[in-house]
């Protein structure tokens, strides 16, 4: 692996009385595609700027391959940044933008020519060499910024919301290309975004931020499937929350919770709970089945509820149902796998059954008695 590892040790940052980062400890592996995900103003960009060297933390340490680098200025860190608004030099051509770092190092003319061409080829921009930034489209500007940041062969590449200015289709496309570039150059990528879809589709691991704190660090699957808390659950995709009191503990790792009007639900006891505790549990909408008919012969540990369909949103590849069960609204997403339905179709105001496996429900918050 050509990249370097990055480790932050209890980094905090205050702007006056506002605490932008609180005790951030993250260890990013060599060559990893690591995302910092969170809503705007959560501190993720501040952390990125600290790693780049544009900002100094109020407290904490920053290690690049076990070397403390906080004292180094940005131009001595072997870390390069792709800025949110690209930050291309408007008076220089595409070629000169990419060649800029080499010109500073007084690299030979022929060497510059071949290296710049190599990197423009990497980002598929060889046709625009002599254009000025203002003549490029958003996606092309993005590519110039990436080539320019990579040409110094940094050991870590920082990307600050690099796709936020592109339209949705192009964003998908660039994301795949970013992933390909990451595979090709093999260095560590640290990717800042507020878009959970972007983060979980390309990252090896994701750190979810909110209000200057880390809520969870994990692989995309871990973060989506077993969110550490309610914030992570709701920030990464849509979900349902149900609150109840633990009534019974089963020895096979399940707990029975009493949710009042909804009834008793069986849920994964993935957090330490005991009888009488109040828990908030979550279940993803696509994990819930819906049918107009009573589902029979279900496996053990399945929760079945009855409600009425309040709203149906047809989105093409799936339908979103909003089902009212004892005044609690459940979101249920159903894929349209085949359109010749052999079951009774569900329409607005219908009575419907919804059910999910106990293994798909997770506890996200526990208040001990």
């Amino acid at each position, binding site marked *: 692996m050509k990249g370097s590892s990055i480790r932050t040790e209890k980094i905090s940052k205050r702007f006056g009385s506002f605490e932008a980062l609180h005790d951030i400890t993250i260890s990013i592996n060599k060559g990893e595609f690591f995302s910092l995900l969170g809503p705007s103003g959560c501190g993720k960009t501040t952390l990125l700027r600290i790693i780049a060297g544009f900002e100094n933390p109020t407290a904490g340490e920053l290690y690049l391959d076990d070397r403390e680098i906080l004292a180094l200025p940005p*131009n001595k860190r072997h870390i390069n940044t792709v800025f949110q608004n690209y930050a291309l030099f*408007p*008076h220089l051509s595409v070629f000169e933008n990419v060649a800029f770092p080499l010109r500073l190092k007084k690299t030979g003319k022929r060497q510059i020519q071949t290296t710049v061409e190599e990197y423009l080829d990497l980002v598929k921009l060889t046709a625009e060499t002599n254009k000025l930034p203002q003549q490029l489209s958003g996606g092309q500007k993005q590519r110039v910024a990436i080539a*320019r940041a990579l040409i*110094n062969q940094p050991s870590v590449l920082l990307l600050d919301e690099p796709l936020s200015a592109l339209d949705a289709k192009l964003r998908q496309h660039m994301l795949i290309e970013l992933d390909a570039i990451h595979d090709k150059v093999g260095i560590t990528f640290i990717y800042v975004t507020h878009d959970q879809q972007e983060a979980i589709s390309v990252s090896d691991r994701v750190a979810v931020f909110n209000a200057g704190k880390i809520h969870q660090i994990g692989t995309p699957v871990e973060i989506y499937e077993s969110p550490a808390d309610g914030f992570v659950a709701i920030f990464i995709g849509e979900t349902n929350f149900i609150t109840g009191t633990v009534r019974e503990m089963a020895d096979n790792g399940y707990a029975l919770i009493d949710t009042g009007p909804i009834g008793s639900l069986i849920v994964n006891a993935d957090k330490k709970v005991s009888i009488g505790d109040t828990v908030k549990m979550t279940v993803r909408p696509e994990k819930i089945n819906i049918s107009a008919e009573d589902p029979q012969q279900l496996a053990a540990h399945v929760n079945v509820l009855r409600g009425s369909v309040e709203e149906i949103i047809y989105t093409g590849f799936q339908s979103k149902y909003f089902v009212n069960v004892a005044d609690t609204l459940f979101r249920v997403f159903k894929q349209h796998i085949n359109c010749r339905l052999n079951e009774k179709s569900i329409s607005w105001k219908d009575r419907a059954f919804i059910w999910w496996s106990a293994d798909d429900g997770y506890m996200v918050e526990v208040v001990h008695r």
Partner: protein
Amino acid sequence: MNSKRGFSSVVFTLVVLFFYLPLVILILFSFNHSKTMSWGGLSFRWYEELFFHSRTLWNSVFNSVIVALSSGLISTIVGTLGAVGISWYDFRGKRMLQVAGFLPLILPEIIIGVSLLIFFAGIKLKLSLFTVFLAHTTFNIPFVLLMVTARLEEFDFSIVEAAYDLGAREIDALLRIIIPLAFPGILSGFLIAVTLSLEDFVITFFVAGPGASTLPLHVYSMIRFGVSPVINALSVVIIAATAVLALSAGNVFKYIVRK
């Protein structure tokens, strides 16, 4: 519609006349043989006098050009660096410096002139062409500051951060990124500075030492003994020179933009 167009062309003609009629009369009378306002026939008499018998006048022109170019250059350098500092750096007292920097733009010239005179007397600096240069640099800096700041404000500071990020030292960022970007602003700042310096009368009047007369001062002293037609001839020469300069400056700008 038609009457509207007629009205606007009348206004246009009046405005043009208002601007240029005095100049036309001036040009006309520079070729007048007679010394008075009555027409005495076509003659190049005053041009002859201007080019061959007006050493002190040319001396003042030379003074003016020296002061304009040197104060223009120095104030452009200081003003540009000041604009970069104020726009893109954070430091204590920045706000105050900003206000102080622009203050001379609104202060009456006579106040600047008097204060400079008192200051030079206070530090026992003998009035000379050098004090004129200092004074002109002083009042030129705010104009350059304004022009360059306006230009810099169009750009995002992140391009400077990007330069650092890519390995640039402060001086690299200044020479390779900031100055090329701000160049149109720097150039127009310089041109304004030179123009203001060339035409300044009030401040120069206070701070010019003996023998350090600039063109406006010299013209004024000539006028005190009656309007000499030599001044008409001189004005025509200046108008011609300015026109040539303005046209070529336009071409320079076009060249820069195209580049």
